[in-house]
């Protein structure tokens, strides 16, 4: 029998459990409905199409307060998504680095890697955020300072890096690649993401500087260092879980240290660390919601802070927020999932 095949349960218990679930859900639904009827709560979705009437300080796509509310929610979702994706990439790099360093005693920096993990894994996330934001990034100069002949501009508001026409060239390149992929078989998703990146890069190309606000930097740093400590532990554990016999077999085959790691140990370890890494990537996406504390306009801040307050539609906004987080996290989950894996 296949391991994932469904177990047979007596039909009575199956119906009983179904009835139980339906009962709970409908009890919650009717409870809410009765309260809503009793107190004349008007739950309408019409506010989504009326104009937003608030500014958003950081946005990757063009936005003005005259745009509809659903577009403001999209802007906030894109903020969340791009922040999460950037953190994913850098946390993976740092996590693998510190994980490999701390797995083997032969490295001189093992003590550093393991103490890094100890510090960042055992302190609360919000505490770390306040440390980076109020303790580190608020030390930046009040007025704008210019370094390296205008290559870097630093102030307490933001950090700007000179990019020249780089983003315009990148945008053009991505556009070409996106159109090329459109004509390939089964590359529609790839093409779509290249075209989206091309569009986002084109928006950056209006200015010769790439500007990141202090809030974005603080969130990026906090989440990167926090998650990297978890990833380091996962990587370390997976590397150490490869049996010694395999190690010996690789040596017996005459592989040197580098090839042994690259061809034998790492592929085996990667297989066991993958599900745990997916866990971490999903956690990153949800952890971006701490941006609400320091005023970064991500999904949580815009939807449950500003929009709930201006429209009063608490239930709708909260359920919308949950749905968007759910779909973003599911997307991440499917992105890293193997083919033919039971869901």
């Amino acid at each position, binding site marked *: 029998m296949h391991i994932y095949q469904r177990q047979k349960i007596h039909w009575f218990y199956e119906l009983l459990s179904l009835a139980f679930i339906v009962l709970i859900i409908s009890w919650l639904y009717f409870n809410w409905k009765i*309260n809503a009827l009793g107190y004349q709560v008007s739950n309408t979705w019409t506010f989504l199409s009326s104009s937003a009437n608030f500014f958003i300080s950081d946005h990757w796509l063009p936005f003005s307060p005259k745009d509809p509310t659903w577009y403001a929610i999209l802007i906030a979702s894109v903020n969340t998504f791009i922040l999460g994706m950037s953190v994913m990439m850098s946390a993976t790099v740092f996590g693998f680095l510190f994980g490999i360093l701390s797995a083997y005693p032969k490295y001189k920096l093992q003590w550093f890697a393991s103490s890094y993990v100890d510090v960042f894994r055992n302190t609360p996330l919000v505490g770390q955020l306040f440390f980076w934001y109020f303790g580190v990034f608020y030390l930046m100069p009040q007025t704008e300072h210019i370094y390296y002949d205008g290559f870097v501009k630093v102030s307490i508001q933001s950090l700007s890096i000179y990019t020249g026409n780089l983003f315009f060239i990148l945008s053009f390149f991505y556009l070409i690649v996106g159109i090329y992929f459109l004509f390939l078989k089964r590359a529609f998703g790839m093409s779509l993401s290249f075209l989206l990146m091309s569009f986002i890069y084109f928006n950056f190309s209006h200015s010769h500087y790439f500007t990141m606000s*202090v809030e974005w930097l603080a969130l990026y740093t906090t989440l990167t260092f926090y998650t990297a400590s978890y990833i380091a532990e996962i990587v370390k554990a997976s590397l150490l879980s490869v049996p010694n016999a395999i190690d010996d077999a690789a040596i017996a085959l005459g592989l040197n240290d580098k090839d042994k790691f690259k061809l034998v140990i790492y592929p085996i370890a990667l297989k066991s660390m993958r599900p745990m890494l997916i866990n971490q990537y999903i956690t990153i996406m949800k952890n971006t919601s701490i941006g609400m*504390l320091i*005023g970064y306009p991500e999904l949580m801040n815009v939807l449950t*802070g500003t929009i709930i307050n201006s429209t009063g539609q608490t239930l709708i906004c909260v359920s919308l927020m949950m749905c968007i987080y759910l779909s973003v996290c599911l997307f991440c989950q499917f992105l890293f999932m193997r083919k033919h894996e039971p869901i």
Partner: protein
Amino acid sequence: MHHNISTFLIAGIFKRWYVRFMRWLLIIYLCLIQTIQANIIPEIKKRGVLNCGVTTGLPGFSFMNEKGEWAGFEVDYCRGIAAAIFNDPNKVKFIPLTNQMQFLALNMKQVDVLARVISINYTRATQLSGMFPVTHYFDDEAVLIYNLNIKKLSDLDGKTICLVSGSTTEQNLYHYALTQGWHYKPLVMSRGQLAVRALASGRCKALAGDRSSLYVFKNELPKPKQANVFDESIALEPLGLMVRQSDIDLYQLIQWMHYALVLSEQKNITQATIASKQLTLSDFNEQMGIMSLTMSYLPDHWLYQVINAVGNYGEIYSRNLTKPLNIPRNNNKLMSQGGMMYSPSFN
């Protein structure tokens, strides 16, 4: 032979189960509908305590003092309601709520009254199933600047302005900037204390909010003398208590309690004069011009109990706002002294 749901779906047994199930649900639904009441005061009496939703901490309005008791301007209003119903200002359960959850907590009957510096506006009064009995504090929206030498509000053009999430400030500031033709960058912080720290570090050049809160925030800055609350105001922000639309009795209680607090200040009736028995109930009624104070579910001398417990409007104001925090009374003076506080007569 094995059984699963799909076999029974085809056999139609599930359908019969479903019909029976829905019948039960309908019965439960109808039972629950009948539990909705039109009046809340009998329920509060039965419960023995008033549930009052307050802020998580705003000095002067609702905060926990050094003795670990809730105190403040709004807290005294809740104590006044409890005094009217129970003749005991301590029969109140204070429930701290965040800006985001306040209206949901009121709708879902977690609290009976919201006393958390709520600005009155059209959306809240019509679409949130709540009512505002009376404006008990005339506030306006202003801007707090720190270490910044500017003269006019329009000098903030293009600068970053800190805001606290979950207030009407965001919309009002946007409309003000729109009509004045200038632009700003908002930094929407989750809590007032964080916004104050951002202002102190120079991350934002100004902090916009209700004038009453800004006076509180000014004292939390490292050098309060270098801070300045602009006289220019962005919008008027009348603050009020909020009750559910179904609870008309509590609505009337709060409305006329507020009027009585104002009238007793006008007539120089204080907590001390009542507590020391200088003023008997009949004298009190005579001075206030009360003919008959009949109100359903309440004793006939409920206003006497209220003034006895919390004092008049001026006393509440000076105890919570003038003495500890130096917040001027501005628009909240009596109408005879140039303010906006008035009371209809009680005859």
